[in-house]
């Protein structure tokens, strides 16, 4: 099963492949114009994404609390400062990625006329030995071997951490080979060029010198082909598999090698001396290791199954291969399968790869930006929540102040009304002063709550609070009462009745006794009516006023309402001023960051989509 993977790959060569190196170089020259076109296209896209990126980098680099007058000990400042650290980590990571991208692009462009093979893997996995073997047919060549080499590889040094062997370009020029040692040796991005190929060796990852591994990973993206080495003494370690999965995401040809797939077969001779022979691991063991790595990769990165199908895993032994030159050893060492695979990639996909690598790298860069922008967005949202929390707290403080002011003003208005009853001028002046004092006290407390001092403008606003001139003035409450001081109706009635009864009685007496009685009765009735009417004319009335109090309750209510209205208005203004003073700059910073982030994400998504379409045509 596994043998199938690396034996069928041997036959993967194209009939249309360049016949020789010159043929390959001629082909490169022919498509040079296409490279230039691709380069221009990439440049346009890069400029577009970089503009958006630089904008957010510049915005986020500004200190969000720089313009805030809040003291550093304010809880909001503490929270924002803590959150800002996370933002700075993300932003610095982006800035680093930009640098890495530009460095990788420049590196790739320098070797634009050859297939760039990048060798990557754990420390002591055999990367430099493999490079030396490809260059000279020997994993640790001596000067003679180096001098006799044909074609002669040209070694170069790209970058060095100085953590292990402290390589320089001059030393590399003089040495013309990779350093080999039992301890961690390589600390540089180094390589050699042979016609049509640039072979890049890198420091080991996961070593005790992390700076070396970090340098290696920065250059992995610039390659056309990545060769990942994993020592066969521990194949399929999770840390290796995770690196491989990461490389698969870069969407470029990947070859995985299980190095040192050999063992020392020992015996003792007749003299009791040890005799050793280096032999390849059994086919079963090699198959077992290859299967294990492929299977675990499938488990680790199920989404990348299709990419895994294109990824070959080869067990190889450089030491075994260099011990002889016969074809059987070449094949058994696994080097034949590896060479066939690299040649296949170079001949059949080389040109397309050269054009696609910058596109892939930019797409990968855009995808990374897009993914990590969610982290930044989350941090910005967190900051927005902190800010909102602080503003809500300030608003609550303002509301509590207002509640207290309502009570104070109510009590004050009543006291002052009692004190200055019926004296409108004194009452209004006192109310005005009380309102100003209350506003000033609560305004001061509000500002102090956020560690601020009430500035002149705000203090002046608290003083300039005229009460409405249409407010009612003091008035007494009275009632007018009218009463009849003299009553004449009864007297008139008696007198009129008496006189007319006598008159009519005397007249009736002419008619006899019944006439006299009737005359008296009639006279009495008419006399009383007439006397009553006459007496009413002489009745007299008087009026008087009753003092019922005054209108101070109405005035209190009206003045209190007016004062509370002013207080509400002024406190709202003060809250607004304070909000703008303390949170305005931070809010603007956040809004600008969010807007820039949105633009960047849109740009990254657009470029990624278009690059994906473009890559499909390659």
């Amino acid at each position: 099963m596994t043998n199938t993977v690396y034996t069928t790959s041997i036959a993967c060569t194209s009939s249309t492949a360049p016949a020789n190196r010159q043929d390959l170089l001629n082909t490169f020259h022919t498509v040079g114009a296409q490279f230039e076109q691709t380069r221009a296209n990439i440049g346009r896209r890069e400029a577009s994404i970089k503009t958006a990126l630089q904008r957010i980098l510049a915005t986020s680099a500004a200190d969000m609390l720089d313009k805030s007058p809040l003291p550093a000990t304010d809880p909001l400042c503490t929270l924002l400062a803590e959150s800002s650290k996370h933002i700075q980590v993300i932003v610095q990571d982006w800035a680093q990625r930009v640098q890495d991208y530009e460095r990788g692009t420049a590196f790739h462009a320098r070797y634009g006329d050859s297939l760039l093979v990048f060798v990557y893997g754990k420390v002591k996995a055999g990367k430099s030995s493999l490079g030396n073997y490809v260059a000279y047919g020997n994993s640790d060549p001596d000067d003679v071997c180096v001098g006799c080499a044909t074609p002669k590889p040209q070694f170069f040094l790209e970058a060095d951490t100085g953590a292990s062997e402290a390589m320089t370009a001059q030393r590399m020029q003089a040495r013309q080979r990779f350093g080999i040692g039992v301890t961690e040796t390589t600390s540089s991005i180094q390589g050699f060029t042979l016609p049509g190929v640039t072979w890049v060796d890198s420091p080991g990852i996961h070593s005790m010198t992390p700076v070396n591994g970090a340098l290696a990973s920065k250059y992995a993206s610039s390659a056309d082909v990545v060769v990942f080495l994993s020592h066969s003494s521990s194949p399929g370690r999770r840390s290796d598999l995770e690196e491989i999965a990461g490389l698969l995401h870069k969407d470029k040809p990947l070859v995985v090698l299980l190095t040192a797939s050999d063992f020392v077969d020992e015996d003792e001779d007749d003299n009791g001396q040890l005799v050793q022979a280096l032999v390849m691991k059994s086919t079963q063991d090699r198959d077992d290791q290859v299967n294990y790595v492929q299977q675990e990769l499938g488990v680790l990165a199920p989404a990348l199954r299709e990419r895994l199908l294109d990824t070959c895993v080869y067990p190889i032994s450089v030491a075994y291969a260099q011990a002889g030159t016969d074809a059987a050893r070449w094949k058994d060492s696994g080097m034949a399968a590896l060479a066939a695979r690299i040649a296949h990639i170079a001949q059949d996909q080389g040109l397309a790869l050269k054009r696609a690598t910058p596109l892939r790298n930019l797409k990968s860069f855009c995808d990374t930006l897009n993914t990590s922008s969610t982290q930044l967005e989350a941090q910005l949202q967190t900051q927005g929540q902190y800010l909102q929390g602080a503003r809500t707290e300030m608003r609550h403080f303002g509301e509590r102040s207002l509640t207290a002011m309502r009570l104070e003003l109510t009590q004050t208005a009543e006291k002052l009304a009692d004190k200055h009853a019926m004296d409108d001028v004194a009452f209004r002046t006192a109310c005005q002063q009380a309102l100003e004092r209350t506003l000033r006290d609560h305004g001061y407390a509000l500002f102090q709550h956020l560690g601020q001092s009430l500035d002149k403008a705000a203090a002046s606003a608290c003083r300039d609070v005229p009460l409405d001139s249409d407010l009612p003035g003091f008035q007494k409450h009275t009632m007018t009462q009218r009463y009849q001081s003299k009553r004449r109706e009864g007297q008139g009635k008696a007198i009129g009745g008496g006189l007319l009864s006598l008159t009519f009685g005397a007249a009736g007496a002419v008619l006899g006794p019944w006439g006299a009685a009737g005359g008296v009765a009639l006279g009495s009735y008419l006399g009383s009516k007439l006397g009553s009417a006459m007496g009413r004319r002489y009745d007299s009335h008087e009026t008087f006023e009753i003092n019922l109090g005054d209108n101070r309750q109405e005035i209190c209510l009206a003045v209190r309402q007016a004062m509370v209205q002013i207080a509400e208005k002024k406190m709202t203004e003060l809250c607004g001023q304070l909000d703008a003073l303390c949170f305005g700059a931070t809010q603007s910073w956040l809004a600008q960051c969010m807007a820039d982030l949105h633009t960047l994400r849109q740009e990254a998504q657009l470029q990624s989509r278009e690059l994906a379409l473009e890559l499909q045509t390659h």
Partner: protein
Amino acid sequence: MMTEPQMMQRLCDESAEFARLCQETKAQAARTLSKLPRVLACGLLKAGKSSLLNALTGNLAHEFFATKASRSTTQVAELTVAEVTYVDTPGLDACAADDQEAWRGLEGADQLLFVHDLRVAALDVMEAAFLKELQRRRPDVQRQLLVVLTHAESAATDVDARLADLGVSLKKVLGFRPTMVCTSFTRHRKGVLEHKPTLVAKSGMADVLAHLSHLRHQNDWLASRSVRQTCRQQQLAALVTQATSQRQHELQGLQQARAQLFGYLHNDFGNFLGCLRERLASYERI
């Protein structure tokens, strides 16, 4: 009110360290009846742990601890030979489950064989992290640790340089340079099965057994076991105290917030009452 098991579960959920110490304490308590020393092999995936233990326990013609070219040990396995219990653990850096199982196996070990493949001379970052964590969990690791370097047959020519480099790295990580023994399982197996004394002599297996025996005689491993258990209990107590003070701190914060809100309410209500009383008094005056 939380029950004791609920409280324990909550503490375990909150602190992985607490959960680990709990598990170790329970496991150690269950193992107190065993008076045999436990020699445990640990190290990276495919470092040669199982082969080493097969050699030390004499399982050469037929292996007891399973081996193969890729990952094979996924569970802790043990075998007692000559009143010593040998414990095999899954290789580190294969998967999280294997790492966890290996640490579980490490809980009751009295002697530790840290196995490193001599073909890869340099100590890598995963091994360094493992050793640091081991030292954190077992401050007395120096008295229990023996570094066994396997596949010596593949590094015959430059073994001294490799040992020197490893010694430096180990000292950097652990703060001391542990005893290192070079071994070769293939030499030992072939030597024993085919009666070849040179191979057996150069396999280094006898050295490993001798060092283990020396360490056992030099250090009272049973007492160390007891000290470790006491140490775990103290760490658990410290974690409980830490969790308690953290809760008290949180509670204090909540109480302060509540007191502040009550203060506002009390103040507002007081003002309201005052206002009401004054109003009533003014009515009464009328």
